[in-house]
């Protein structure tokens, strides 16, 4: 189960959004990741946490809309790392976990809906490009996931419609 306390403040990180926090009361949550991918980052020394909710694999060099700064894997990850650095996080200390990239419209439609697989590949590649090793991943499959990052502990949890939260 999650370690949410009574005074925990759940901050919803919507599609294309990213959130940073160093407040131990905060729990950053990306609800219902389908083909989207959530990226949780935690610097255990600086105690800075961030969660991004990526929608699509590539910005294809287009300008990113400020209202959805983490819409694309490439530009979203670049911005996520920049914000973390500005908040005092150090890249080599970051514990990065990823979840999502599913084909939730069923196995029969998986051939048509490849966006989840493409998102997962794009995210893995962009993190590698920045020299970041993924500490834990829960990608693919056919189930939607909710991902949450507890700022107090730096722990990341994933749950589905059918299964309770478990630590990633």
């Amino acid at each position, binding site marked *: 189960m999650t370690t949410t306390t009574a005074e925990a403040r759940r901050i919803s990180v919507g*599609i294309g959004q990213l959130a940073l926090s160093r407040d131990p009361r905060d729990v950053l949550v990306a609800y*219902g990741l389908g083909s989207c991918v959530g990226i949780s980052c935690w610097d255990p020394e600086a105690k800075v946490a961030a969660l991004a909710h990526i*929608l699509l694999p590539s910005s294809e060099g287009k300008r990113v809309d400020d209202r*959805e700064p983490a819409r694309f894997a490439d530009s979203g990850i670049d911005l996520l790392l920049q914000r973390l650095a500005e908040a005092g996080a150090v890249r080599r200390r970051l514990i990065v976990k990823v979840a999502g990239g599913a084909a*939730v419209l*069923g196995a029969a439609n998986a051939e048509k809906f490849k*966006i989840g697989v493409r998102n997962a590949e794009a995210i893995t590649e962009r993190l590698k490009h920045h020299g970041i090793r993924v500490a834990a991943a829960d990608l693919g499959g056919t189930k939607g996931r909710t991902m949450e990052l507890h700022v107090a502990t730096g722990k990341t949890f994933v749950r589905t*419609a059918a299964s309770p939260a478990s630590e990633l």
Partner: protein
Amino acid sequence: MAVDELIPALASVAADGAVRAGRGLSGLMGQEISIHVPNIRVGTKNDACDAVGGEETVVIGSYLSISGDITGHVMLLFPEPRALECVDLMMGQEPGTTTGPDEMACSAISELGNIVGSAFVNALADHLNLVLHPSPPQVLHEMAIALVESVYAEVLSQGGDVVMMDAVFEDQKGRTAGLLIVAPDPASLGALQRVAA
């Protein structure tokens, strides 16, 4: 015609589609269902899930793809308890008999998706004089946001705008009985604009 101008042109088609779909739902459930005027919008649809209970809601429903003169996506979603009630009503069972999405319930939900989704697609085809084929329904038991977001991402990844039509059905107690979401693929928007003009 710009995509924004397509919306009023599609409004009456969507309204008739929603009425026909609602009629199908009423007939299957054996009770009067009222229909809200459908929303048609361009852009991100976090709030499309509000009608079924917001971002943490788990829904049971079905997905159909549209092929033919245009291609696109149709989903009929029910908050989980409503879906189970629908199944009991359809099967003429005591309320509370169905407690989960078992094989019988999935079959009933599939039939609901088939009839209600096809009613909307047929309205679209009739009004716009298009040949459209709905696929067999895929039954889904999933977080509402994950479904909406996946269709949104797929359409968006093809380039162009996402136009989503959503209609909310209400039962006699004023509760959400279902949410119908229809999204054409971007390549079909041009064809829709030509015939809707």
